[in-house]
């Protein structure tokens, strides 16, 4: 395609948008609403994910051994666990360390009481603390460790992480459903806008075909129209979300200091580095898909 033909087609695409001003505006507004909702859910999920990660970092499996198990066997068990791909870190807590830690928590201020124990009451409580890369894999790992010879008991604490993971799953499902419906509406509206454009330019298209315009040249302005509507429909909510996100984070941090201190918000730069390209690709993709679908349906060249 020649460069002037390209610019001609882009110009025609832009003209189409202004010719069907109201339809174009409705399409851009719907697309903006879709991408805005998508952005809101993306932000929510990103922040919940971050919270899950924070909680997961504190979640560990505790592995206790059979009484009198040899040190070499305990070491072997540790090595076996460490080899597992889902394990991020493994820490050995000796019986002495376990007792010291217990004393620190339960005899704080009454250290004299602990003096009464001549022997380590937690003699058989040497253990491994196993930290996972992804807390959702905890059950599988626990089953594996339980079956290792020499392991007496495995304790897990995953309630909080499980709840958050579950919440994130539901959030992802609900948001996917809502976004899908909105995207269908957006495709439908772009479809209508382009169809109106085709109908308005029916005579021009007929003349173009008789003069000898290629199919591509007849179709390209409508594709440009769809892409521009999609891109505008993505850029507007992105700008809006960027401004609002900063303000909301600041507001929550100031007004709800408890929530602010409990939760770390994802930095806007980090968040938008992921969100912006996804939203733009989504917007342009829907615009492209919507216009191509309409052309296929209404524009017989």
């Amino acid at each position, binding site marked *: *395609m*020649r460069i*002037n*033909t390209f610019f*001609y087609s882009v110009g025609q695409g832009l003209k189409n948008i202004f010719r069907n001003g109201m339809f174009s505006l409705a399409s851009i507004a719907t697309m903006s609403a879709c991408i805005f909702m998508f952005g809101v859910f993306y932000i929510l999920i990103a922040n919940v994910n971050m919270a899950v990660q924070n909680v997961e970092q504190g979640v560990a499996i505790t592995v206790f051994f059979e009484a009198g198990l040899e040190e070499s066997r305990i070491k072997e068990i540790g090595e076996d666990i460490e080899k597992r791909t889902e394990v991020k870190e493994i820490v050995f807590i000796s019986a002495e360390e376990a007792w010291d830690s217990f004393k620190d928590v339960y005899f704080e201020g009454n250290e004299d009481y602990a003096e009464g124990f001549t022997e380590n009451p937690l003699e058989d409580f040497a253990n491994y603390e196993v930290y996972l890369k992804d807390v959702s894999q905890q059950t599988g790992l626990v089953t594996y460790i339980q079956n290792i010879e020499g392991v007496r008991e495995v304790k897990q604490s995953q309630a909080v992480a499980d709840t958050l993971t579950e919440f994130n799953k539901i959030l992802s499902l609900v948001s996917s459903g809502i976004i899908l419906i909105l995207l269908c509406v957006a495709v439908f509206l772009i479809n209508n806008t382009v169809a109106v454009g085709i109908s308005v330019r029916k*005579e*021009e298209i*007929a*003349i*173009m*075909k*008789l*003069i*000898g*315009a*290629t*199919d591509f*040249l007849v179709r390209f302005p409508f594709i440009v129209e769809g892409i521009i509507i999609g891109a505008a429909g993505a850029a507007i909510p992105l700008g809006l979300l960027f401004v609002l996100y900063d303000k909301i984070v600041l507001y929550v941090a100031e007004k709800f200091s408890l929530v602010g201190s409990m939760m770390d918000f994802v930095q806007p730069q980090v968040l938008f580095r992921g969100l912006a390209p996804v939203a733009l690709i989504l917007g342009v993709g829907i615009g492209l898909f919507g216009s191509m679908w309409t052309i296929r349906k209404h524009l017989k060249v």
Partner: protein
Amino acid sequence: MIKLEHVSKSYSAGIPALNDVNLEIEDGEFVFIVGSSGSGKSTLIKLLLKELEPTEGSIVINGKNLRKIRRRHIPKFRRNIGVVFQDFRLLKDRNVYENIAFAQKVIGQPTKNIKKKVPAMLSMVGLAAKYRSYPKELSGGEQQRVAIARALVNEPSILLADEPTGNLDSNNAWDIMKLLEEIHEHGTTVIVVTHNLDIVKVMKKRVITIQKGVVVSDSKQGDSSYED
């Protein structure tokens, strides 16, 4: 050269719009095609533009069998045929210059060429002074001149005019016919579909008469068996 051999076209099971038409039109000829409404003239134009496929027979234009032209090559084929319609079919939102330039733009001509060719075409049709006017500001005759300029700007070897004087008064009709004759004198093959037998008789060109889809006469001197 345009050659039709045993061309028939049926839209449905009824009477064919064209029935076993055999025609030869040499390069640089001026031909009138006459016939009553529904005689098959418009079908013939559509077949020549490859807007329709014949049910039977073959059409060869400038050595190319239309049946064998692939879909993607149709635009290139059509660039060699200019078309003018009774209702002008100008773009109302564009001025005279833009309407003619449009034909060049859609075939990807560079702006430099467009700037040379369009004023030349405007001078040829006598509308150089009105290049900024919009179609609604022009008379019927002037609008048809713009349509002719648009049809010729890409230098086709064939000009098809479908009832070019149908919406014009007698004076304007004669002006348009004079313009078409000038174009013919420059070597373009001109095919005019018309009802206007006065013009046909005076111009003394070849006349092909079609009735009920059949070529009933083909006269070299402006005679026609058709009566309007």
